[in-house]
C-alpha cells in the first residue's frame, strides 16, 4: 500500500493480511488442481500445474449434463430472490410503520423459520411438492428456499425502512399520493441500498444451499452443487473436473460481491443482519 503522505504501514495490518492468506490458500489449491490432468493430480505433488490444461473446463462447458446445472441454479436463485423481495417489501413496511394485532409474535414466528434446520424439512417438502406435481421444477426449489429467505429479507428491509423518517410518508399522503404510488416512486428509491442488500443475501443463501435443492430435483432442474456430489460418488474420483466445477461455482458469488462491495459494511450496519 502506498498512501500518499503516509510512509509507514501500521504493523497491525499484518493480521488481516495473514487472515486473507489463510483464506486464499485452499482456494489457490482448488484453482491449481483444476488446471492439472488427473494423472498429474494423483501421481505427483506439484505446487503449480506442470502440464497446464484447460480440458477440465472444456469438459464442463461442452457437456450439457454439467453446464445445465449452472443454468438451473441461476434460474431458481433469480426466481427465489424476486419472489422473496416481492412479498417481503410490503410486510417489512407494515412491521416498520404500524403496530397491529400479534405483530411481535408474527415477527418472531417469521424469524423462527430462518432458524429451522433444513434437514427437518427434507422429507415433508418432498411429499408436499410431489402432491402438487412440482418435483423437479425450478419453481419448487425457489418456493422452498423462501422458507429461510423471506424472513431474512423482511428482517433486513425492516431495519432499513425504520431508518427512514415517518414524516416522509405523512407528507406524501397529504400531497395526495396513493399508497402504491408513494411506495414505488418515493419509498423504494429511498431504501434502494436496503433492497440491494436484501437481494444480495437472498441470492447468497439460495446459491449456497444444497440439501433442499438436491431433494426436490431429479434431472430437469438439478443444481450444479448436486451434480458435483453425484460425480464424486458415481464415476470414481475425477478430481480435475470436480475442482473445475468448484471454481466455476465461485465466480457468480465473486461477481456479486464486487458489485455490492461498498454496501457490505453499510448494509451490515443498517440492516441488522
Amino acid at each position, binding site marked *: 500500500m502506498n498512501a500518499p503522505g503516509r510512509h509507514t504501514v501500521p504493523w497491525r495490518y499484518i493480521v488481516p493480511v495473514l487472515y486473507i492468506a489463510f483464506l486464499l490458500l485452499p482456494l489457490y489449491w482448488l484453482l491449481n488442481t483444476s488446471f492439472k490432468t488427473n494423472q498429474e493430480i494423483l501421481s505427483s505433488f506439484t505446487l503449480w500445474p506442470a502440464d497446464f490444461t484447460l480440458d477440465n473446463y472444456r469438459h464442463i462447458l461442452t457437456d450439457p449434463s454439467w453446464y445445465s446445472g449452472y443454468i438451473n441454479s441461476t434460474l431458481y436463485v433469480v426466481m427465489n430472490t424476486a419472489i422473496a423481495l416481492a412479498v417481503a417489501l410490503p410486510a417489512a413496511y407494515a412491521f416498520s410503520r404500524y403496530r397491529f394485532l400479534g405483530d411481535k409474535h408474527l415477527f418472531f414466528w417469521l424469524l423462527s423459520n430462518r432458524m429451522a434446520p433444513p434437514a427437518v424439512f427434507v422429507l415433508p417438502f418432498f411429499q408436499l411438492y410431489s402432491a402438487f406435481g412440482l418435483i423437479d421444477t425450478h419453481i419448487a426449489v425457489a418456493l*422452498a428456499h423462501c422458507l429461510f429467505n423471506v424472513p431474512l429479507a423482511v428482517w433486513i428491509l425492516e431495519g432499513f425502512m425504520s431508518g427512514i423518517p415517518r414524516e416522509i410518508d405523512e407528507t406524501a399522503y397529504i400531497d395526495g399520493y396513493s399508497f402504491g404510488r408513494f411506495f414505488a416512486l418515493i419509498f423504494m428509491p429511498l431504501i434502494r441500498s436496503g433492497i440491494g442488500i436484501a437481494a444480495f443475501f437472498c441470492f447468497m443463501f439460495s446459491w449456497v444451499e444444497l440439501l433442499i435443492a438436491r431433494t426436490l430435483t431429479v434431472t430437469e432442474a438439478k443444481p450444479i452443487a448436486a451434480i458435483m456430489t453425484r460425480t464424486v460418488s458415481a464415476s470414481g474420483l475425477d478430481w480435475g473436473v470436480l475442482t473445475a466445477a468448484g471454481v466455476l461455482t465461485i465466480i457468480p458469488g465473486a461477481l456479486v460481491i464486487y458489485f455490492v462491495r461498498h454496501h457490505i459494511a453499510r448494509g451490515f450496519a443498517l440492516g441488522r443482519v
Partner: protein
Amino acid sequence: MKSWNNRAWLLVLPVLVLVAFSAVIPLMTVVNYSVQDSFGNNEFFWVGTEWFQEVLASERFHNALLRNLLFSGIVLAIEIPLGIAIALCMPTRGIGVSFCLVLMALPLLIPWNVVGTIWQIFGRVDIGLLGHWLNAAGVEFNYTSDVTDAWITIVLMDVWHWTSLVVLLCYSALVAIPEAYYQAARIDGAGRWSIFRAIQLPRMKRVLIIAVLLRFMDSFMIYTEPFVLTGGGPGNATTFLSIDLVQMAVGQFDIGPAAAMSLIYFLIILALSWVFYTVMTRDDEQAQEGQR
C-alpha cells in the same frame, strides 16, 4: 410512536400465505408422522409419544447432540474473538478497505458442498497441500481415519468459512464510531485497552449478539460441509444431528423416530434463539428510550 393499524395485516398477508405453504404445512406433516407408526401401504396408527420417548432415551441422539454442542462451542470460541481481532486491525480508509472486504466475503458465497470439496482436496494426504505438508513435516495427519484430525479439519473449515461474517459485522460497527469519541478518549489519556473496553466493545455489542446468534444457529444446523468432507466419519465421530436425521429419514426411512427427532431438534434451536432474540430486542428498546 408507531400507529395502531390492523389493516397492516393486509400487507403481511402475502408473506403469511407463502410461509404457510413452505413452513406450516411441512411442519404439520412432521407432527403428524411423529405420533404415528406405519406398516407401509399408507396404513397409520396412533402411537402417542412413543417415538419421542424412544429418541430422547437413545444414546445415538445423545451423542449427536453432544457433538453438535461441542462443535458450536468450539467454533464460537474461536470465530468471535478472532473476528473481533481482525476487524480491529483492518484499515479504515483507502483502497485496502475494498480489497479486504471483497476477499474476506469470498468464502461466504461459496456453495457449502464446494467448501467441503475445497477442504477435502486441501486436506487429503495424497493430493492435498495441507495433508501433504503436515505429513512431510513429520506430523501424522489423516482426517479420514483419525478422530482428532477429522475434528481439527472440520473446525478449521468452519473457521475458514464463517469468521469473515463476524469480521464484516464488527467492522461495520467500528467504522460507524464517530472520530470525536476517539479524540475525547485521547484527551483523557486512555490507552489502547481502555478505548477497546469503553468505546469499541459497547458499540459492537449489538452486532456481536447478532453474530453469535447467526453463528450458533448455522453451526448447530451444519450438514453439507461435514457430509461432503467426512461423511460423518471416521465411524460416527462427526455425525451431527442433521446428518443423523437425514440418514434416518431418507436412508433408513424410519419416518416416525425421524419426525420426533426433527421436532425435538427444532424446539432446541427455537428455545435458544428466543433467548437471543429477547436479549437483542430488549437492547433495542433501551437504546430507543436512551435517545428520547
